[in-house]
């Protein structure tokens, strides 16, 4: 299976290049290419379960670039490509609103290729390169509508994203100077042999700032509430669902656990950032009336949960954090697709102008209910189990106050989503919305798949409540420490 690993980058890249070809005669070709590529990727990602190993690009071993596949990478691949498939399905009808379909799919596939590259790479500089592919594609996708707000948000996102990339590149340069290597394992070995070097601390600080910016953890979150709502709905779903994780949290965890070693101060920083994001994000979300903007603030808050769980550093905490990361990908992308469907049908996503859509858009309303209950942590749905794991982990680690904060934030989230449900779907119908119809079938399919996943992923806890299906394997990759998972 390992020889298939480079195809995770090559296939979406090929799709992106082909979709970018100027073509007027075959308007459906980009749709087909996008969906085919994502289907192939999803299937292959699923078939990677149970496999791990290294794959040297160009057959140079440690002298060149090494791709590494382990539990965490497979988990991320499944999340990225699965959500990506739902988003492309949704796009087929949704993108009718926009021109330049070919460029849309091209950028979308480039973003996916970039994220897959980031997840699979075992090389620091290669990480930077693929991060830039994903980041640049997402800047352009945020601006895709070319309206005032969208351009403004994209510019803000691009500036902060570039600053983050710059900080990361300085850190890579410092690490190279210290260790003479770019391979993560080699760097980790070198750093472990040569502790107490203040320059290492500088590199760690820069990397933390850079990836916290990409992950939108709280002091660095300014761009997210603008950028995520401005993009077309499937792109918002990708941005909130997987991009902030693949480019932010995932790399943060990978570096903290597998390169620098999970020392107590590092974990404390991660935990603190997580807790602050969790609380501040939900506080900011409560007052929002724009559906997508509200969801975006909740992304900050939920990413905080993930960082908190992983920052505990205990087996239960890591499992909870990773589980929540996967769950958040599913329900947050579903919520954004719901918002897109509402906007597509009703022409607005302002909660004050919506109401009573339950009757006219049953699929959207019901899937949105599922997603809302998941994010708020209502029992049968996946969000409940992962939040439970995180709270249990907090108590187990003796951090009772953090557990209280996690529960309180969960209640506030519930309140916030009750508001969404009430104003958008339940309340009496507004006269302006009488002509609204349910969205086309492919958009409904995408939402139904994600809603089913909200329930199915919660079954993962049946496999073992301490370490739900696949999550234990992924957590092993982190817990494996410096030499993490793969030899």
């Amino acid at each position, binding site marked *: 299976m390992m020889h298939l690993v480079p195809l995770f980058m090559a296939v979406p890249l090929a799709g992106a290049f082909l979709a970018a070809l100027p073509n007027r005669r075959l308007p459906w070709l980009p749709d087909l290419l996008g969906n085919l590529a994502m289907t192939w990727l999803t299937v292959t990602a699923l078939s990677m379960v149970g496999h791990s190993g290294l794959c040297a690009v160009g057959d140079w071993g440690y002298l060149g670039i090494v791709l590494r596949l382990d539990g965490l990478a497979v988990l991320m691949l499944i999340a990225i490509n699965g959500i990506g498939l739902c988003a492309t399905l949704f796009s087929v009808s949704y993108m009718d609103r926009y021109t330049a379909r070919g460029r849309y799919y091209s950028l979308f596939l480039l973003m996916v290729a970039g994220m897959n590259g980031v997840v699979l790479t075992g090389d620091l500089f290669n990480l930077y390169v693929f991060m830039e*592919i994903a980041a640049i594609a997402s800047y352009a996708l945020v601006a895709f509508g070319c309206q005032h707000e969208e351009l403004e948000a994209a510019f803000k996102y691009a500036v902060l994203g570039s600053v983050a990339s710059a900080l990361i590149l300085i850190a890579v340069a410092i690490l190279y100077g210290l260790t003479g290597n770019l391979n993560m394992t080699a760097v980790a070995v070198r750093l472990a042999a040569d502790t107490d070097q203040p320059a290492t601390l500088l590199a760690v600080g820069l990397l933390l700032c850079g990836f916290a910016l990409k992950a939108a953890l709280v002091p660095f979150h300014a761009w997210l509430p603008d950028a995520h709502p401005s993009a077309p709905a499937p792109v918002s779903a990708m941005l909130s669902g997987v991009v902030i994780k693949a480019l932010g949290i995932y790399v943060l965890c990978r570096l903290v656990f597998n390169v620098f070693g999970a020392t107590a101060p590092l974990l404390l920083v991660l935990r603190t950032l997580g807790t602050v994001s969790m609380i501040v994000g939900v506080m900011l979300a409560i007052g929002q009336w724009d559906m997508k903007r509200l969801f975006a603030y909740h992304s900050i808050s939920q990413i905080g949960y993930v960082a908190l769980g992983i920052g505990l550093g205990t087996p239960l905490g890591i499992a909870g954090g990773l589980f929540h990361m996967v769950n958040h990908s599913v329900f947050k992308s579903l919520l954004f697709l719901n918002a897109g469907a509402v906007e597509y049908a009703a022409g607005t996503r302002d909660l004050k102008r919506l109401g009573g859509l339950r009757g006219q858009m049953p699929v959207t309303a019901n899937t949105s209910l599922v997603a809302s209950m998941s994010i708020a942590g209502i029992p049968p749905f996946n969000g409940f189990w992962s939040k439970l794991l995180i709270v249990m982990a907090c108590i187990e680690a003796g951090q009772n106050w953090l557990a209280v904060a996690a529960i309180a934030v969960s209640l506030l989230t519930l309140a916030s989503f009750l508001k969404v449900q009430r104003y958008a779907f339940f309340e009496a119908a507004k006269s302006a919305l009488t002509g609204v119809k349910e969205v086309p079938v492919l958009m409904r399919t995408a939402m139904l798949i994600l809603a089913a996943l909200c329930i199915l992923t919660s079954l993962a806890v049946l496999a073992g409540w301490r370490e739900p299906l696949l999550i234990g394997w992924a957590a092993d990759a982190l817990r494996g420490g410096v030499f993490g998972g793969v030899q």
Partner: protein
Amino acid sequence: MALLGILLFLMIIGAVIAVETRNLLSSIVCLGAIGFLLSIVFLFLGAPDLAITQLVVEILCLVILIRATIHRRVETVAGNREFVGLAVTVVMLAIVLMLAISMMAGFPSLGTSVLDRMAQAPSHFYLLQGKAQTGVTNIVTAILLDFRAYDTLGEATVLFCAVMGALAVLRRSARRRPEEGDAGDEGEGGAE
């Protein structure tokens, strides 16, 4: 080394002018000057490949930037924020800089590259075996297109991606009018 210091100093002065000047065109010209100085510095540091690339990229940057700003209102209206905010920013950045420089104290001093310190570093292999293994004498090219060709593929993709993005951002009409759309699109949909 003194020469390097002087060149760097000039670059910093250029950077300050580029950032602070009120006229956008002078700012762009200053950027060009910095890039040109950087190209010379690369030449001194034994990196002719970089010097050439930096030089041509710089020219292209200037052309693109000037093309974007010419004939537009280029005077910088609100140059700065209010004084207090500015002062706080400057102090903060100064602290960060001092901190960074002090932390760099343990960093291997300039002029002792990885090659001198680590016999195991991949760079040794590249220099020793580069020609025998790849058949090219420019080791930078050997790294770029053989040892780390995957990075280069990524790099070409980044460029393509940015150009696709620019094409997408600069297309004439981004949204279709509602009446052109397909069914399920009636009402006030799409009109923002």
